[in-house]
């Protein structure tokens, strides 16, 4: 069975005829070519696929594209600021070296973005709790926590345009 979707992704209206079983992550990667959102597991555990659904963090491998008509999705490709500057969270990951291989990073950045929207000044413990659903095999999380703290301390960061 196919379904016609109507989903706003990074501010653009998208519509496709897809199989009902199409997971949001496959819709983003294969239909829209937005491969920044990663798939890291088969069990809904790793969080590499995290995107914002109407501003809230969700695992896009555990939502069907058919379910979310007329919703707004933000992926890592839509994380930067309007002028092309990195968002404070993206810049925090750069400044604090919050990544090694980078596989978990898009999901970490989206989950951290959702956290800072709700709680602009989280403690270390709050950051660790908020990122419970995101696994990283490389960093040991220390630098990720620092990256989120950097973003919290620099909410108005801008580089004045794309680099």
């Amino acid at each position: 069975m196919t379904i016609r979707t109507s989903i706003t992704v990074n501010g653009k209206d998208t519509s496709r005829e897809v199989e009902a079983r199409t997971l949001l992550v496959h819709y983003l990667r294969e239909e829209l070519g937005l491969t920044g959102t990663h798939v890291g597991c088969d069990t809904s555990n790793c969080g590499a696929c995290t995107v914002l659904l109407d501003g809230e963090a969700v695992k896009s491998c555990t939502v069907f594209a058919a379910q979310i008509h007329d919703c707004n999705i933000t992926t890592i490709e839509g994380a930067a600021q309007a002028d092309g500057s990195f968002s404070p969270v993206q810049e925090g990951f750069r400044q604090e070296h919050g990544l090694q291989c980078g596989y978990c990073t898009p999901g970490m950045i989206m989950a951290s973005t959702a956290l800072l929207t709700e709680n602009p000044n989280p403690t270390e413990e709050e950051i660790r709790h908020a990122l419970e659903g995101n696994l990283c095999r490389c960093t040991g999380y220390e630098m990720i926590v620092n990256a989120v703290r950097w973003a919290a301390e620099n909410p108005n960061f801008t580089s004045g345009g794309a680099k």
Partner: protein
Amino acid sequence: MIPAQFDYVEATSVADAIRLLAEHGDEAKLLAGGHSLIPLMKLRLVTPATLIDVTHIKELSYIKEDGNNIVIGALTRHRDIEESDLVKKHLPLVAHVAGEVGDPQVRNRGTIGGSLVHGDPAADLPAAALATGATMVIAGKNGERRISAQDFFVDFLETDVQPGEILVAIEFPKHTDAGWAYEKFVRRAMDYSIVGVALQLGAKPGVALVNMSNKPHLAVSASQAIGKGAAIADVLAVINDDTNPPEDLNATVEYRQHLARVLTQRAFATASK
């Protein structure tokens, strides 16, 4: 990790869901938050012919006060329960337990109704429903019926919800200003409990155990002992009555029973503070 093919239909009201369930029969499944169902479908352990998406039924997502009860709509998300001032005030155990489920992404999608109907003995919210003495409200073609949480859980991943029926609400008696505690024993942050203990003190006390039986488990003798004001040692002596814990890589039967005693003791210490 791609689910098998299925037909997708959307229900817009409870009546609509009941009509669609009758129309599509046994091979259809309701889709709520999808956070138990979709993982199973990705592994093809479950292959429904039709998914009836109920996530758009707005009338089933609410938290309201009704006399001595707090009533929660079946499609209310874990996150909305965790953050509700009404639940925090009158059912602090339930608010806390909702916040212990999985991780933030899971709580943003998963619903209380889905968690209860899934009936996993390792899940958190079923234990909270048992300890607080909740009542399930189930709708079908012949109208609504009510059943206690204790009778609702039938066996492993099996509840009293019959084909053609939908859980619409959960009625919780208020436990305002009463002691409570939830002890969730895990090795990694977002895991399911190896063992968990939900303790509600006050006028209508109850203690329920997570992952200690083939279904969500109300510790009946221990709950009665608490009701009679028994000493903690006497409660601990009967906490493992009628349990049937699984044995797996995490724990043997004996270790689980040990944990049930230790965690119950800790729960008492926390609840009495």
